[in-house]
């Protein structure tokens, strides 16, 4: 028997068939394969830096071999970036808060998320997908009052912020920041005695109550890091409206801070993720988003940031404080009135 030498014969027809088959194969492959490599820019909150750098970026690099560049800033700045670059977006995915998402939808800056693009969205808890898939919540930190444990044993009630003993000892977030809403709603509740769900609409009463807080307020911030630094140093005793994904990791690092869950209620932070309309590298963007909604990554982020995952199959040991109401406001109402409130509170708190 003579061994014949293999000589591939490739006819034009064979070549066309092979190319077509390869094309179909690529298209049929999961997005994860097609998304491999490449680069996208993700807009997110500055306070997300620790877990974005420590968890998300290495995960994406390992999963897709892709480079994820993230720009950490405020939700409103992310919105402005989308708005200013509407005709040639450079952000592919943005992670920002629900009230700003509403504005982005109104300005037609987002593209809906579908189950075919991000299959993990089907595993999210009820209420985590908004406005027909315009955005989804991924993890949900809770917000209360951060305090310095060297100076205070706790903050059992929101009324403590108003006590005369804390003159100049409190920093509150500006209403320009989402977490700024919590002090306003707490003030509405304390002023009216109504449950937070009803009190949130009693804004005049809330502003009257906020005026009483003024002597205790050292400053209002739009940049949280410096305010938190002052809390850590003991320059202030309480930082109103702070949230679990920022305070509790610092506590775990041995910093003398903790997050109190006042008896009147705590707040659910509305962390959302969306696809930018016309953003570059769609497939990688969808794959990134799908991973952010997936149980594995959500579990890691939620554990680190002491937050609740939106994916119902994610396994975490994190819990929200028990025995206190958890409140999620009417963001459409907030979104509609926020501009007026920002101007009003700036004037009210002006030194």
């Amino acid at each position, binding site marked *: 028997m003579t061994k014949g030498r293999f000589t591939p014969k490739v006819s034009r027809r064979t070549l066309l068939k092979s190319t077509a088959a390869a094309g179909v194969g690529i298209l049929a492959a999961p997005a994860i394969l097609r998304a491999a490599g490449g680069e996208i820019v993700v807009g997110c909150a500055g306070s997300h830096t620790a877990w974005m750098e420590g968890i998300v970026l290495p995960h994406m690099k390992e999963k897709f071999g892709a480079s994820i560049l993230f720009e950490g800033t*405020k939700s*409103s*700045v992310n919105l*402005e970036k989308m708005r200013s670059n509407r005709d040639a977006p450079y952000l592919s995915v943005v992670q920002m808060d629900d009230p700003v998402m509403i*504005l982005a939808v109104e300005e037609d800056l987002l593209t809906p998320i579908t189950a075919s693009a991000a299959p993990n969205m089907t595993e999210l808890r009820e209420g985590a997908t908004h406005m027909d898939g315009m955005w989804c919540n991924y993890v949900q930190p809770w917000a209360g009052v951060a305090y310095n444990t060297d100076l205070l044993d706790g903050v059992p009630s929101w009324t403590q912020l108003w006590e005369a003993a804390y003159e*100049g000892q409190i*920093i509150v977030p*500006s209403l*320009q920041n989402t977490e700024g809403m919590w002090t306003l709603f707490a003030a509405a509740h304390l002023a009216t005695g109504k449950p937070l769900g009803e009190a949130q609409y009693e804004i005049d009463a809330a502003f009257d109550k906020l005026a009483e807080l003024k002597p205790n*307020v*050292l*400053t*209002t*911030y*739009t*940049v949280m890091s*410096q*305010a938190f*630094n*002052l809390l850590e*140093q*003991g*320059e202030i005793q309480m930082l109103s409206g702070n949230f679990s994904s920022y305070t509790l990791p610092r506590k775990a690092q041995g910093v003398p801070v903790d997050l109190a869950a006042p008896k009147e209620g705590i707040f659910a932070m509305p962390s959302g993720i969306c696809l930018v309309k016309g953003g570059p590298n769609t497939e990688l963007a969808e794959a990134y988003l799908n991973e952010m909604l997936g149980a594995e990554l959500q579990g890691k982020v939620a554990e680190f940031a002491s937050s609740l995952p939106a994916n119902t199959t994610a396994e975490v040991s994190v819990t929200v404080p028990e025995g206190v109401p958890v409140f999620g406001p009417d963001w459409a109402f907030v979104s509609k009135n*926020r*501009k007026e409130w*920002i*101007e009003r509170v*700036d*004037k009210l*708190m*002006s*030194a």
Partner: protein
Amino acid sequence: MSVVSTRYEAPRAPWLDRFVLLAAPGLMYLALVFALPLALLLLKSFQNQDGAFSLAAYAEFFGDPYNLTVLWRTLRVALLTTLLALIIAYPTAFALARAQGLAQSLLLAAMILPLSVGVVVKAFAWSILFRSNGVLNDTLKWLGLIEKPIRMLFTETALIIGAANVFLPFMVLPIYAVIRQLDRSLPEAAASLGASPMFRFFRVTLPLTLPGVIAGSAFTFSLAISMYVIPSLIVGERQQTLSMLIARSYLFLRDDQLGSSISAILLAIAVAVVLGSSWLAGRVAGGRR
């Protein structure tokens, strides 16, 4: 008879000087990235939402007492920052100009190097300095000047001290440049004629260095009146300045017309200061001739 022909050469206008062409790239760059956007910004401030001519944004700004408070605070902070920087910079510039060799190099490095440290880093450093148990309060307590800590953080005083620190090189260097060219024999001549040190300073040295003072003050004032990051970090939102109102208008209120009109007001102040200082410098220089 011989005919002597002479060719008449008209004196060349200064703007025709070919060396002016060297400024062309810079001028084009400024026109593209500075003048054009500013012109569009100004135009926007005079338009309503439908694009028609309107002064509504200016009326809205000047009709709100809060905005006038912010305008006055911005001017006051810029003026006091400039004044403090001048008080520190004037003797420093003399020391720099009179120093020799290594001492001068060290002084120059000390003046320039802090520019390489970001404002954010400086702001955090200042919070260590100004806080209740910070270096300043501890020193004052140790000296027996205070019994309990005084609040320094988030005050206008802290903002002025911080801003003067950041902008100091912009005040020192123009004064230094003038002092270096100062004819040292002039104060000596005044002294030989019996002028007292005080008289020599106020009648000879200070007038001769005024162009540097005016240039440095114009630089510092322009920077101080438009600063955004420094007040955001040092005094926060409770003491807003015009720049903070501009950011708020664009980013949070989404009111382009209001933002552009406040920008135009800020620009008008800065331009008035620069033109005024140029005019003053010209008068000072003219007065000396």
